[in-house]
Protein backbone atom coordinates (compact mmCIF):
# COMPACT_ATOMS: atom_id res chain seq x y z
CA UNK A 1 0.00 0.00 0.00
CA UNK A 2 1.35 3.39 -0.94
CA UNK A 3 1.54 5.78 2.00
CA UNK A 4 -0.20 9.10 1.35
CA UNK A 5 1.12 12.45 2.40
CA UNK A 6 -1.07 13.85 5.15
CA UNK A 7 0.51 17.28 5.23
CA UNK A 8 2.28 18.82 2.23
CA UNK A 9 3.83 22.23 2.57
CA UNK A 10 5.21 23.87 -0.54
CA UNK A 11 5.56 27.29 1.05
CA UNK A 12 4.42 29.20 4.11
CA UNK A 13 5.39 32.81 4.83
CA UNK A 14 4.27 34.87 7.80
CA UNK A 15 4.80 38.34 9.19
CA UNK A 16 2.89 40.38 11.72
CA UNK A 17 0.62 42.95 10.04
CA UNK A 18 2.34 46.00 11.52
CA UNK A 19 5.85 44.68 11.06
CA UNK A 20 8.08 44.55 7.96
CA UNK A 21 10.12 41.58 9.19
CA UNK A 22 9.21 38.15 7.94
CA UNK A 23 9.44 35.80 10.87
CA UNK A 24 8.39 32.56 9.21
CA UNK A 25 9.42 31.18 5.83
CA UNK A 26 9.12 27.40 5.84
CA UNK A 27 11.16 25.04 3.67
CA UNK A 28 9.01 22.64 1.67
CA UNK A 29 8.27 19.44 3.55
CA UNK A 30 5.65 16.75 4.01
CA UNK A 31 4.37 14.37 6.64
CA UNK A 32 3.28 10.89 5.64
CA UNK A 33 0.12 9.25 6.92
CA UNK A 34 0.70 7.64 10.28
CA UNK A 35 4.04 9.39 10.57
CA UNK A 36 5.36 10.89 13.77
CA UNK A 37 7.17 14.16 13.24
CA UNK A 38 9.22 15.85 15.92
CA UNK A 39 9.93 19.54 15.50
CA UNK A 40 12.35 20.95 18.01
CA UNK A 41 13.61 24.46 18.31
CA UNK A 42 14.35 27.24 20.72
CA UNK A 43 11.53 29.33 21.97
CA UNK A 44 10.96 32.28 19.67
CA UNK A 45 11.82 30.22 16.62
CA UNK A 46 8.24 30.51 15.37
CA UNK A 47 7.09 26.96 16.22
CA UNK A 48 3.81 28.07 17.78
CA UNK A 49 3.06 30.51 14.96
CA UNK A 50 3.62 27.68 12.53
CA UNK A 51 1.18 25.45 14.44
CA UNK A 52 -1.37 28.28 14.54
CA UNK A 53 -1.14 28.50 10.75
CA UNK A 54 -1.52 24.74 10.35
CA UNK A 55 -4.60 24.91 12.57
CA UNK A 56 -6.07 27.76 10.59
CA UNK A 57 -6.23 30.21 13.50
CA UNK A 58 -3.49 32.48 12.18
CA UNK A 59 -3.57 33.61 8.56
CA UNK A 60 -0.17 33.46 6.78
CA UNK A 61 1.03 36.15 4.38
CA UNK A 62 1.37 33.57 1.67
CA UNK A 63 1.10 29.80 1.74
CA UNK A 64 0.67 26.68 -0.30
CA UNK A 65 -0.42 23.98 2.11
CA UNK A 66 -2.26 20.77 1.41
CA UNK A 67 -3.64 18.83 4.34
CA UNK A 68 -5.48 15.53 3.89
CA UNK A 69 -5.57 16.28 0.17
CA UNK A 70 -7.46 19.47 0.85
CA UNK A 71 -6.15 22.77 -0.45
CA UNK A 72 -5.92 24.17 3.07
CA UNK A 73 -4.49 27.54 1.98
CA UNK A 74 -7.60 28.36 0.05
CA UNK A 75 -10.15 27.50 2.73
CA UNK A 76 -12.16 30.33 4.24
CA UNK A 77 -11.63 30.98 7.98
CA UNK A 78 -14.86 29.21 8.90
CA UNK A 79 -14.01 26.25 6.65
CA UNK A 80 -10.69 26.07 8.46
CA UNK A 81 -12.54 26.06 11.81
CA UNK A 82 -14.64 23.12 10.65
CA UNK A 83 -11.61 21.36 9.19
CA UNK A 84 -9.79 21.75 12.49
CA UNK A 85 -12.79 20.48 14.46
CA UNK A 86 -13.12 17.39 12.25
CA UNK A 87 -9.53 16.39 11.64
CA UNK A 88 -7.35 17.61 14.50
CA UNK A 89 -6.73 16.64 18.06
CA UNK A 90 -4.64 19.16 20.00
CA UNK A 91 -2.60 19.00 23.20
CA UNK A 92 -0.76 21.97 24.73
CA UNK A 93 1.83 22.57 27.36
CA UNK A 94 -0.84 23.11 30.03
CA UNK A 95 -4.26 24.59 30.68
CA UNK A 96 -5.81 22.34 28.08
CA UNK A 97 -9.08 21.88 29.91
CA UNK A 98 -12.02 24.05 30.76
CA UNK A 99 -11.71 24.20 34.54
CA UNK A 100 -15.45 24.34 35.22
CA UNK A 101 -16.35 21.27 33.16
CA UNK A 102 -16.02 17.72 34.44
CA UNK A 103 -13.41 15.39 33.00
CA UNK A 104 -16.11 13.62 31.01
CA UNK A 105 -17.51 16.88 29.61
CA UNK A 106 -14.03 18.08 28.69
CA UNK A 107 -13.32 14.92 26.70
CA UNK A 108 -16.73 14.94 24.99
CA UNK A 109 -16.41 18.65 24.15
CA UNK A 110 -14.17 17.78 21.22
CA UNK A 111 -17.10 15.97 19.58
CA UNK A 112 -19.43 18.86 20.38
CA UNK A 113 -17.92 20.87 17.55
CA UNK A 114 -17.56 18.05 15.03
CA UNK A 115 -20.20 15.81 13.53
CA UNK A 116 -17.47 13.76 11.94
CA UNK A 117 -15.84 12.96 15.28
CA UNK A 118 -19.22 12.19 16.81
CA UNK A 119 -19.89 9.83 13.93
CA UNK A 120 -16.74 7.88 14.75
CA UNK A 121 -17.85 7.34 18.34
CA UNK A 122 -20.68 4.84 18.62
CA UNK A 123 -21.06 5.04 22.39
CA UNK A 124 -19.69 8.20 23.97
CA UNK A 125 -19.68 6.94 27.60
CA UNK A 126 -17.96 3.71 26.65
CA UNK A 127 -15.37 5.41 24.48
CA UNK A 128 -14.50 7.93 27.18
CA UNK A 129 -14.09 5.14 29.72
CA UNK A 130 -11.95 3.15 27.31
CA UNK A 131 -9.66 6.11 26.67
CA UNK A 132 -9.47 6.90 30.37
CA UNK A 133 -8.35 3.43 31.30
CA UNK A 134 -5.95 3.26 28.34
CA UNK A 135 -4.39 6.50 29.59
CA UNK A 136 -4.17 5.24 33.17
CA UNK A 137 -6.86 7.56 34.51
CA UNK A 138 -9.05 6.27 37.32
CA UNK A 139 -12.73 6.16 36.38
CA UNK A 140 -13.47 7.94 39.67
CA UNK A 141 -12.16 11.09 37.99
CA UNK A 142 -14.91 11.04 35.35
CA UNK A 143 -17.23 13.47 37.07
CA UNK A 144 -14.59 15.49 38.83
CA UNK A 145 -14.14 19.10 37.77
CA UNK A 146 -11.00 19.54 35.70
CA UNK A 147 -9.62 22.19 38.05
CA UNK A 148 -9.26 19.58 40.82
CA UNK A 149 -6.92 17.36 38.80
CA UNK A 150 -3.12 17.20 39.05
CA UNK A 151 -1.13 18.56 36.11
CA UNK A 152 -0.19 15.02 35.02
CA UNK A 153 -3.84 13.95 35.09
CA UNK A 154 -4.87 17.06 33.20
CA UNK A 155 -2.36 16.35 30.44
CA UNK A 156 -3.63 12.79 30.07
CA UNK A 157 -7.25 14.00 29.95
CA UNK A 158 -6.08 16.41 27.22
CA UNK A 159 -4.69 13.41 25.32
CA UNK A 160 -8.03 11.61 25.69
CA UNK A 161 -9.79 14.67 24.32
CA UNK A 162 -7.34 14.91 21.41
CA UNK A 163 -7.84 11.23 20.58
CA UNK A 164 -11.62 10.93 20.85
CA UNK A 165 -13.40 10.62 17.53
CA UNK A 166 -10.17 9.34 15.95
CA UNK A 167 -8.97 12.54 14.24
CA UNK A 168 -6.35 11.97 11.56
CA UNK A 169 -3.89 14.53 12.87
CA UNK A 170 -2.72 15.05 16.44
CA UNK A 171 -0.87 18.27 17.18
CA UNK A 172 1.09 18.48 20.39
CA UNK A 173 2.76 21.70 21.49
CA UNK A 174 5.22 21.10 24.35
CA UNK A 175 2.80 18.73 26.10
CA UNK A 176 5.43 17.44 28.50
CA UNK A 177 7.09 20.64 29.66
CA UNK A 178 4.95 20.88 32.78
CA UNK A 179 5.71 17.26 33.74
CA UNK A 180 8.62 15.84 35.74
CA UNK A 181 10.87 13.28 34.03
CA UNK A 182 9.06 10.15 35.34
CA UNK A 183 5.67 11.51 34.35
CA UNK A 184 7.12 12.63 31.05
CA UNK A 185 8.24 9.12 30.15
CA UNK A 186 4.97 7.45 31.02
CA UNK A 187 3.08 10.24 29.24
CA UNK A 188 5.06 9.71 26.02
CA UNK A 189 4.56 5.96 26.18
CA UNK A 190 0.81 6.26 26.67
CA UNK A 191 0.54 8.90 23.95
CA UNK A 192 2.42 6.80 21.42
CA UNK A 193 0.53 3.62 22.23
CA UNK A 194 -2.80 5.32 21.64
CA UNK A 195 -1.74 7.22 18.53
CA UNK A 196 -0.40 4.06 16.98
CA UNK A 197 -3.52 2.14 17.92
CA UNK A 198 -5.58 4.79 16.20
CA UNK A 199 -3.26 5.26 13.24
CA UNK A 200 -3.22 9.03 13.61
CA UNK A 201 -0.42 11.22 12.35
CA UNK A 202 1.49 13.10 15.04
CA UNK A 203 3.06 16.52 14.79
CA UNK A 204 4.99 17.08 18.00
CA UNK A 205 6.67 20.36 18.82
CA UNK A 206 9.08 20.82 21.68
CA UNK A 207 12.28 22.55 22.71
CA UNK A 208 13.27 19.36 24.56
CA UNK A 209 15.68 17.43 22.30
CA UNK A 210 15.67 14.41 24.61
CA UNK A 211 12.27 13.51 23.31
CA UNK A 212 13.59 12.96 19.79
CA UNK A 213 14.37 9.34 20.70
CA UNK A 214 10.66 8.56 20.47
CA UNK A 215 10.40 9.71 16.86
CA UNK A 216 11.39 8.40 13.49
CA UNK A 217 11.63 11.88 11.93
CA UNK A 218 13.24 14.81 13.69
CA UNK A 219 13.54 18.34 12.36
CA UNK A 220 15.38 21.27 13.81
CA UNK A 221 12.87 24.05 13.42
CA UNK A 222 15.59 26.73 13.28
CA UNK A 223 16.94 25.22 10.08
CA UNK A 224 13.50 24.52 8.84
CA UNK A 225 12.54 28.17 9.02
CA UNK A 226 14.43 30.13 6.35
CA UNK A 227 13.53 33.40 8.01
CA UNK A 228 15.85 32.58 10.91
CA UNK A 229 18.91 31.59 8.91
Amino acid sequence: MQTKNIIEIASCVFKYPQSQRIILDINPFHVRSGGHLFLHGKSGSGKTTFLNILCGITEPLQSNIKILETDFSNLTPSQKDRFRADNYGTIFQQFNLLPYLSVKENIALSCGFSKQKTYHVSDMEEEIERLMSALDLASSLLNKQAMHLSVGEQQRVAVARALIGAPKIIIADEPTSALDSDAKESFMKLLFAQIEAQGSTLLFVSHDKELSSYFETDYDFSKFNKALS
Partner: protein
Amino acid sequence: MKTLWLLTSKSITNRRMAFTLSIISIVISVVLLLGIDRITKAAKNHFLNTINQTDLIAAAPEGSLDILLNLIFHMGDPLKEVDYSSYQTISKMDKVAWAVPLSVGDSFKSYDAVSTTNDYFKYYRYASAKVLEFSQGGDFKDFYDVVVGSEVAKKLHLTLHEIIHLSHSSGESAHTHANRDFHICGILKSTGTPNDTSVFFQLKADEAIHLEWQSGHFVDMHISSEQLAKMNIQPKHISGILIGLKNRSNILNIADKLEHFKGENLKAVIPAKALSKLYVLLKNMQEILTLISSIVFVAAIFGMIATMLATLNDRRREIAILRTLGATVKSIFTLFALEAFIIVASGILLGNVLLTLLLILNNLVFYTTVQISYFPDIYELSLLFIMLISAIIVSVIPALKSYKNSLQDGLMVKI
Protein backbone atom coordinates in the same frame (compact mmCIF):
# COMPACT_ATOMS: atom_id res chain seq x y z
CA MET B 1 -26.08 24.18 20.03
CA LYS B 2 -26.40 21.68 22.87
CA THR B 3 -22.66 22.04 23.46
CA LEU B 4 -22.97 25.84 23.49
CA TRP B 5 -25.82 25.71 26.03
CA LEU B 6 -23.75 23.42 28.26
CA LEU B 7 -20.74 25.71 27.95
CA THR B 8 -22.74 28.86 28.63
CA SER B 9 -24.53 27.50 31.67
CA LYS B 10 -21.37 26.02 33.20
CA SER B 11 -19.31 29.07 32.37
CA ILE B 12 -21.92 31.32 33.94
CA THR B 13 -22.05 29.15 37.08
CA ASN B 14 -18.30 29.50 37.23
CA ARG B 15 -18.64 33.31 37.21
CA ARG B 16 -21.78 33.42 39.33
CA MET B 17 -20.90 36.55 41.30
CA ALA B 18 -20.61 38.86 38.28
CA PHE B 19 -23.52 37.05 36.70
CA THR B 20 -25.81 37.53 39.71
CA LEU B 21 -24.98 41.23 39.90
CA SER B 22 -25.79 41.66 36.22
CA ILE B 23 -29.14 39.95 36.72
CA ILE B 24 -29.93 42.11 39.74
CA SER B 25 -29.34 45.30 37.75
CA ILE B 26 -31.64 44.00 34.99
CA VAL B 27 -34.28 43.03 37.60
CA ILE B 28 -34.19 46.54 39.05
CA SER B 29 -34.59 48.15 35.65
CA VAL B 30 -37.44 45.79 34.71
CA VAL B 31 -39.29 46.49 37.96
CA LEU B 32 -38.83 50.21 37.42
CA LEU B 33 -39.81 50.21 33.76
CA LEU B 34 -42.87 47.99 34.15
CA GLY B 35 -43.80 49.38 37.53
CA ILE B 36 -43.92 52.93 36.21
CA ASP B 37 -45.88 51.84 33.17
CA ARG B 38 -48.31 49.82 35.30
CA ILE B 39 -48.86 52.61 37.82
CA THR B 40 -49.24 55.46 35.34
CA LYS B 41 -51.64 53.39 33.27
CA ALA B 42 -53.65 52.50 36.34
CA ALA B 43 -53.72 56.14 37.39
CA LYS B 44 -54.81 57.18 33.91
CA ASN B 45 -57.59 54.60 33.86
CA HIS B 46 -58.59 55.58 37.34
CA PHE B 47 -58.98 59.21 36.35
CA LEU B 48 -60.56 58.61 32.99
CA ASN B 49 -63.01 56.02 34.29
CA THR B 50 -64.21 58.02 37.25
CA ILE B 51 -67.05 59.87 35.62
CA ASN B 52 -69.17 59.02 32.64
CA GLN B 53 -72.40 60.30 31.11
CA THR B 54 -72.42 63.48 33.13
CA ASP B 55 -72.68 66.09 30.40
CA LEU B 56 -71.95 69.19 32.43
CA ILE B 57 -70.78 70.21 35.87
CA ALA B 58 -71.86 73.62 37.16
CA ALA B 59 -69.97 75.34 39.95
CA ALA B 60 -68.75 78.73 41.06
CA PRO B 61 -66.25 80.17 38.54
CA GLU B 62 -62.89 78.40 38.81
CA GLY B 63 -60.59 76.55 36.42
CA SER B 64 -62.33 73.56 34.85
CA LEU B 65 -59.69 71.16 36.26
CA ASP B 66 -60.14 72.64 39.75
CA ILE B 67 -63.87 72.07 39.56
CA LEU B 68 -63.48 68.52 38.27
CA LEU B 69 -60.82 67.62 40.83
CA ASN B 70 -62.80 69.12 43.67
CA LEU B 71 -66.27 67.80 42.96
CA ILE B 72 -65.41 64.41 41.48
CA PHE B 73 -62.04 63.51 42.96
CA HIS B 74 -62.46 65.42 46.23
CA MET B 75 -58.99 66.94 45.82
CA GLY B 76 -57.60 70.43 45.96
CA ASP B 77 -58.80 73.66 47.52
CA PRO B 78 -62.49 74.10 48.35
CA LEU B 79 -64.68 75.83 45.78
CA LYS B 80 -66.84 78.87 46.38
CA GLU B 81 -70.42 77.96 47.11
CA VAL B 82 -73.36 77.96 44.75
CA ASP B 83 -76.88 78.89 45.77
CA TYR B 84 -79.18 75.94 46.24
CA SER B 85 -81.81 77.89 44.29
CA SER B 86 -79.57 77.77 41.21
CA TYR B 87 -79.75 73.98 41.42
CA GLN B 88 -83.52 74.17 41.65
CA THR B 89 -83.70 76.40 38.59
CA ILE B 90 -81.29 74.30 36.55
CA SER B 91 -83.06 71.04 37.37
CA LYS B 92 -86.24 72.48 35.96
CA MET B 93 -84.67 73.63 32.69
CA ASP B 94 -86.26 72.16 29.57
CA LYS B 95 -83.26 70.47 28.08
CA VAL B 96 -81.96 69.13 31.40
CA ALA B 97 -82.78 65.47 32.03
CA TRP B 98 -81.40 65.37 35.55
CA ALA B 99 -79.35 67.42 37.98
CA VAL B 100 -77.65 66.26 41.15
CA PRO B 101 -76.52 68.74 43.82
CA LEU B 102 -73.24 68.03 45.61
CA SER B 103 -71.62 69.51 48.64
CA VAL B 104 -68.08 68.52 49.52
CA GLY B 105 -65.69 69.55 52.27
CA ASP B 106 -66.79 67.60 55.33
CA SER B 107 -65.21 64.38 56.40
CA PHE B 108 -65.57 61.10 58.20
CA LYS B 109 -62.28 60.06 59.84
CA SER B 110 -59.83 60.49 56.96
CA TYR B 111 -62.48 59.97 54.29
CA ASP B 112 -64.54 62.50 52.38
CA ALA B 113 -68.13 63.16 53.38
CA VAL B 114 -70.26 64.28 50.44
CA SER B 115 -73.82 65.50 50.89
CA THR B 116 -76.22 64.98 48.03
CA THR B 117 -79.61 63.47 47.25
CA ASN B 118 -80.72 59.98 46.24
CA ASP B 119 -80.41 61.17 42.63
CA TYR B 120 -76.67 60.76 42.98
CA PHE B 121 -77.05 56.96 43.21
CA LYS B 122 -79.57 57.05 40.42
CA TYR B 123 -77.63 59.10 37.85
CA TYR B 124 -73.93 58.82 38.66
CA ARG B 125 -72.12 56.69 36.04
CA TYR B 126 -68.48 55.60 35.90
CA ALA B 127 -66.24 53.55 33.55
CA SER B 128 -68.41 52.43 30.63
CA ALA B 129 -71.75 53.71 31.95
CA LYS B 130 -71.71 51.57 35.09
CA VAL B 131 -74.26 52.34 37.80
CA LEU B 132 -73.36 52.62 41.48
CA GLU B 133 -74.54 49.43 43.17
CA PHE B 134 -75.05 48.56 46.79
CA SER B 135 -73.40 45.50 48.25
CA GLN B 136 -75.66 45.89 51.30
CA GLY B 137 -78.68 48.07 52.08
CA GLY B 138 -79.76 50.90 49.78
CA ASP B 139 -80.04 54.65 49.38
CA PHE B 140 -81.23 57.30 51.91
CA LYS B 141 -84.59 56.65 53.64
CA ASP B 142 -84.25 58.57 56.89
CA PHE B 143 -82.93 62.02 57.65
CA TYR B 144 -79.71 60.77 59.28
CA ASP B 145 -78.98 57.98 56.83
CA VAL B 146 -75.48 57.61 55.44
CA VAL B 147 -74.15 55.54 52.56
CA VAL B 148 -70.51 54.46 52.79
CA GLY B 149 -68.05 53.60 50.01
CA SER B 150 -66.62 50.09 49.78
CA GLU B 151 -63.16 50.97 51.01
CA VAL B 152 -64.43 53.00 53.94
CA ALA B 153 -66.54 50.03 55.03
CA LYS B 154 -63.72 47.57 54.51
CA LYS B 155 -60.98 49.59 56.19
CA LEU B 156 -63.05 50.63 59.18
CA HIS B 157 -64.99 47.35 59.41
CA LEU B 158 -68.30 49.14 59.18
CA THR B 159 -71.56 47.24 58.99
CA LEU B 160 -75.10 48.13 58.07
CA HIS B 161 -77.09 50.16 60.70
CA GLU B 162 -73.91 51.04 62.53
CA ILE B 163 -73.79 54.55 64.00
CA ILE B 164 -71.07 56.95 62.83
CA HIS B 165 -70.27 60.61 63.48
CA LEU B 166 -69.34 62.99 60.69
CA SER B 167 -66.91 65.84 61.07
CA HIS B 168 -67.21 69.45 60.09
CA SER B 169 -64.49 70.35 57.57
CA SER B 170 -61.56 67.97 57.13
CA GLY B 171 -57.95 67.50 58.16
CA GLU B 172 -56.61 69.02 61.37
CA SER B 173 -59.35 71.62 61.68
CA ALA B 174 -62.07 68.94 61.60
CA HIS B 175 -64.57 68.93 64.42
CA THR B 176 -66.76 65.89 65.03
CA HIS B 177 -70.51 66.36 65.22
CA ALA B 178 -70.57 63.98 68.17
CA ASN B 179 -74.14 64.85 69.08
CA ARG B 180 -75.57 63.78 65.73
CA ASP B 181 -75.78 60.01 65.16
CA PHE B 182 -75.82 58.91 61.53
CA HIS B 183 -76.93 55.40 60.63
CA ILE B 184 -75.37 53.42 57.81
CA CYS B 185 -78.23 52.60 55.41
CA GLY B 186 -76.15 51.26 52.56
CA ILE B 187 -72.67 50.12 51.56
CA LEU B 188 -71.56 50.63 47.95
CA LYS B 189 -69.85 47.99 45.87
CA SER B 190 -66.25 48.67 44.90
CA THR B 191 -65.94 50.88 41.81
CA GLY B 192 -62.30 51.89 41.59
CA THR B 193 -63.42 55.54 41.81
CA PRO B 194 -63.30 58.13 44.62
CA ASN B 195 -66.77 56.88 45.62
CA ASP B 196 -64.98 53.98 47.33
CA THR B 197 -63.29 56.37 49.74
CA SER B 198 -66.31 58.58 50.42
CA VAL B 199 -69.38 58.59 52.64
CA PHE B 200 -72.62 60.18 51.46
CA PHE B 201 -75.36 61.83 53.46
CA GLN B 202 -78.36 64.00 52.68
CA LEU B 203 -78.03 67.69 51.81
CA LYS B 204 -80.76 68.63 54.26
CA ALA B 205 -78.97 66.76 57.06
CA ASP B 206 -75.80 68.60 56.08
CA GLU B 207 -77.58 71.92 56.43
CA ALA B 208 -79.21 70.85 59.71
CA ILE B 209 -76.04 69.77 61.52
CA HIS B 210 -74.38 73.00 60.48
CA LEU B 211 -77.07 75.08 62.18
CA GLU B 212 -74.95 74.84 65.29
CA TRP B 213 -71.94 76.21 63.44
CA GLN B 214 -71.72 79.93 63.48
CA SER B 215 -68.71 81.90 62.19
CA GLY B 216 -66.63 78.75 62.30
CA HIS B 217 -67.41 77.90 65.94
CA PHE B 218 -69.62 75.26 67.48
CA VAL B 219 -72.55 76.68 69.45
CA ASP B 220 -74.66 74.11 71.30
CA MET B 221 -78.31 74.99 70.71
CA HIS B 222 -79.60 72.02 72.69
CA ILE B 223 -81.85 70.72 69.92
CA SER B 224 -82.38 66.98 69.84
CA SER B 225 -81.67 65.13 66.60
CA GLU B 226 -85.37 64.25 66.30
CA GLN B 227 -86.41 67.88 66.60
CA LEU B 228 -83.79 68.92 64.10
CA ALA B 229 -85.04 66.36 61.59
CA LYS B 230 -88.56 67.69 61.89
CA MET B 231 -87.59 71.33 61.39
CA ASN B 232 -87.86 70.98 57.59
CA ILE B 233 -84.57 72.66 56.99
CA GLN B 234 -83.83 73.49 53.35
CA PRO B 235 -80.26 73.50 52.04
CA LYS B 236 -78.91 76.95 51.22
CA HIS B 237 -75.54 76.33 49.60
CA ILE B 238 -73.94 73.57 47.64
CA SER B 239 -70.50 73.06 45.99
CA GLY B 240 -71.69 72.15 42.52
CA ILE B 241 -74.20 70.41 40.31
CA LEU B 242 -73.83 67.37 38.06
CA ILE B 243 -76.05 67.72 35.01
CA GLY B 244 -77.33 65.22 32.42
CA LEU B 245 -78.99 66.52 29.26
CA LYS B 246 -81.88 65.07 27.32
CA ASN B 247 -79.92 65.56 24.13
CA ARG B 248 -76.13 65.66 24.24
CA SER B 249 -75.94 67.86 21.16
CA ASN B 250 -77.15 70.71 23.36
CA ILE B 251 -74.05 70.66 25.58
CA LEU B 252 -72.49 73.87 24.23
CA ASN B 253 -75.79 75.65 24.17
CA ILE B 254 -76.60 74.77 27.78
CA ALA B 255 -73.02 75.46 28.88
CA ASP B 256 -73.37 78.93 27.42
CA LYS B 257 -76.70 79.41 29.16
CA LEU B 258 -75.23 78.39 32.51
CA GLU B 259 -72.33 80.77 32.13
CA HIS B 260 -74.79 83.60 31.63
CA PHE B 261 -77.02 82.36 34.39
CA LYS B 262 -79.41 84.84 35.88
CA GLY B 263 -78.73 85.72 39.48
CA GLU B 264 -75.38 83.95 39.92
CA ASN B 265 -71.98 83.61 38.31
CA LEU B 266 -71.53 80.01 37.23
CA LYS B 267 -68.96 78.07 35.35
CA ALA B 268 -70.03 75.10 33.21
CA VAL B 269 -67.44 72.36 32.84
CA ILE B 270 -67.68 69.61 30.24
CA PRO B 271 -66.20 66.64 32.16
CA ALA B 272 -64.98 64.89 29.01
CA LYS B 273 -63.01 67.98 28.04
CA ALA B 274 -61.57 68.51 31.51
CA LEU B 275 -60.61 64.84 31.67
CA SER B 276 -58.76 65.11 28.38
CA LYS B 277 -56.76 68.00 29.86
CA LEU B 278 -55.94 65.73 32.77
CA TYR B 279 -55.06 62.99 30.31
CA VAL B 280 -52.50 65.21 28.58
CA LEU B 281 -50.91 66.03 31.95
CA LEU B 282 -50.76 62.36 32.87
CA LYS B 283 -49.43 61.41 29.48
CA ASN B 284 -46.58 63.90 29.75
CA MET B 285 -45.76 62.58 33.18
CA GLN B 286 -45.89 59.01 31.92
CA GLU B 287 -43.57 59.85 29.03
CA ILE B 288 -41.00 61.44 31.31
CA LEU B 289 -41.09 58.51 33.72
CA THR B 290 -40.83 56.02 30.86
CA LEU B 291 -37.86 57.93 29.51
CA ILE B 292 -36.16 57.79 32.90
CA SER B 293 -36.78 54.09 33.29
CA SER B 294 -35.57 53.45 29.74
CA ILE B 295 -32.33 55.20 30.62
CA VAL B 296 -32.06 52.99 33.69
CA PHE B 297 -32.51 49.98 31.45
CA VAL B 298 -29.86 51.14 28.99
CA ALA B 299 -27.52 51.65 31.95
CA ALA B 300 -28.26 48.11 33.14
CA ILE B 301 -27.48 46.67 29.70
CA PHE B 302 -24.23 48.58 29.53
CA GLY B 303 -23.45 47.41 33.05
CA MET B 304 -23.94 43.86 31.86
CA ILE B 305 -21.68 44.43 28.85
CA ALA B 306 -19.07 46.10 31.06
CA THR B 307 -19.14 43.05 33.33
CA MET B 308 -18.80 40.76 30.33
CA LEU B 309 -15.84 42.81 29.08
CA ALA B 310 -14.26 42.83 32.52
CA THR B 311 -14.38 39.04 32.78
CA LEU B 312 -13.09 38.67 29.23
CA ASN B 313 -9.46 38.49 30.29
CA ASP B 314 -10.22 35.58 32.60
CA ARG B 315 -11.97 33.88 29.72
CA ARG B 316 -9.17 34.22 27.15
CA ARG B 317 -7.90 30.74 27.85
CA GLU B 318 -11.42 29.36 27.74
CA ILE B 319 -12.11 30.91 24.35
CA ALA B 320 -8.69 29.83 23.00
CA ILE B 321 -9.41 26.23 24.01
CA LEU B 322 -12.80 26.37 22.30
CA ARG B 323 -11.31 27.86 19.16
CA THR B 324 -8.71 25.07 19.10
CA LEU B 325 -11.43 22.47 19.37
CA GLY B 326 -13.02 23.97 16.28
CA ALA B 327 -15.42 26.56 17.69
CA THR B 328 -16.19 28.89 14.80
CA VAL B 329 -16.50 32.64 15.00
CA LYS B 330 -20.24 32.06 14.94
CA SER B 331 -20.01 29.76 17.98
CA ILE B 332 -18.09 32.41 19.93
CA PHE B 333 -20.67 35.07 19.09
CA THR B 334 -23.44 32.63 19.98
CA LEU B 335 -21.81 31.98 23.36
CA PHE B 336 -21.94 35.67 24.22
CA ALA B 337 -25.43 36.10 22.82
CA LEU B 338 -26.63 33.12 24.89
CA GLU B 339 -25.06 34.58 27.99
CA ALA B 340 -26.72 37.96 27.38
CA PHE B 341 -29.98 36.16 26.67
CA ILE B 342 -29.82 34.14 29.90
CA ILE B 343 -28.97 37.23 31.97
CA VAL B 344 -31.68 39.44 30.50
CA ALA B 345 -34.31 36.69 30.28
CA SER B 346 -33.78 35.75 33.93
CA GLY B 347 -33.77 39.44 34.81
CA ILE B 348 -37.07 39.92 33.02
CA LEU B 349 -38.63 36.85 34.59
CA LEU B 350 -37.47 37.67 38.12
CA GLY B 351 -38.34 41.34 37.60
CA ASN B 352 -41.90 40.41 36.68
CA VAL B 353 -42.26 38.08 39.65
CA LEU B 354 -40.83 40.72 41.98
CA LEU B 355 -43.10 43.44 40.57
CA THR B 356 -46.19 41.26 40.96
CA LEU B 357 -45.21 40.44 44.54
CA LEU B 358 -44.63 44.12 45.27
CA LEU B 359 -48.00 45.05 43.80
CA ILE B 360 -49.77 42.31 45.76
CA LEU B 361 -47.98 43.44 48.91
CA ASN B 362 -48.89 47.04 48.16
CA ASN B 363 -52.51 46.04 47.75
CA LEU B 364 -52.49 44.14 51.03
CA VAL B 365 -50.88 46.94 52.98
CA PHE B 366 -52.43 50.00 51.36
CA TYR B 367 -55.86 49.24 50.07
CA THR B 368 -56.32 51.47 47.09
CA THR B 369 -59.13 52.15 44.66
CA VAL B 370 -56.63 52.33 41.80
CA GLN B 371 -56.67 48.96 40.08
CA ILE B 372 -53.12 48.04 39.13
CA SER B 373 -52.73 45.07 36.79
CA TYR B 374 -50.49 42.24 38.03
CA PHE B 375 -49.56 41.08 34.53
CA PRO B 376 -47.80 42.77 31.62
CA ASP B 377 -49.94 43.90 28.69
CA ILE B 378 -49.01 43.71 25.01
CA TYR B 379 -47.15 47.04 25.18
CA GLU B 380 -45.05 45.86 28.11
CA LEU B 381 -44.41 42.48 26.52
CA SER B 382 -43.15 44.17 23.38
CA LEU B 383 -40.99 46.42 25.56
CA LEU B 384 -39.50 43.33 27.23
CA PHE B 385 -38.96 41.73 23.85
CA ILE B 386 -37.08 44.82 22.65
CA MET B 387 -34.98 44.63 25.83
CA LEU B 388 -34.07 41.05 25.11
CA ILE B 389 -33.20 41.69 21.48
CA SER B 390 -31.15 44.79 22.24
CA ALA B 391 -29.20 42.88 24.89
CA ILE B 392 -28.41 40.15 22.39
CA ILE B 393 -27.38 42.75 19.82
CA VAL B 394 -25.00 44.57 22.16
CA SER B 395 -23.46 41.23 23.22
CA VAL B 396 -21.64 41.57 19.88
CA ILE B 397 -19.29 44.06 21.59
CA PRO B 398 -17.66 41.61 24.03
CA ALA B 399 -17.89 38.82 21.45
CA LEU B 400 -15.96 40.88 18.93
CA LYS B 401 -13.34 41.77 21.50
CA SER B 402 -13.04 38.14 22.54
CA TYR B 403 -12.73 37.02 18.94
CA LYS B 404 -9.96 39.55 18.33
CA ASN B 405 -8.19 38.28 21.45
CA SER B 406 -8.45 34.73 20.21
CA LEU B 407 -6.87 35.65 16.88
CA GLN B 408 -4.02 37.24 18.76
CA ASP B 409 -3.67 34.42 21.25
CA GLY B 410 -3.71 31.59 18.76
CA LEU B 411 -3.73 28.13 20.23
CA MET B 412 -1.92 28.89 23.41
CA VAL B 413 -2.69 31.74 25.75
CA LYS B 414 0.49 32.93 27.39
CA ILE B 415 -0.92 34.30 30.60
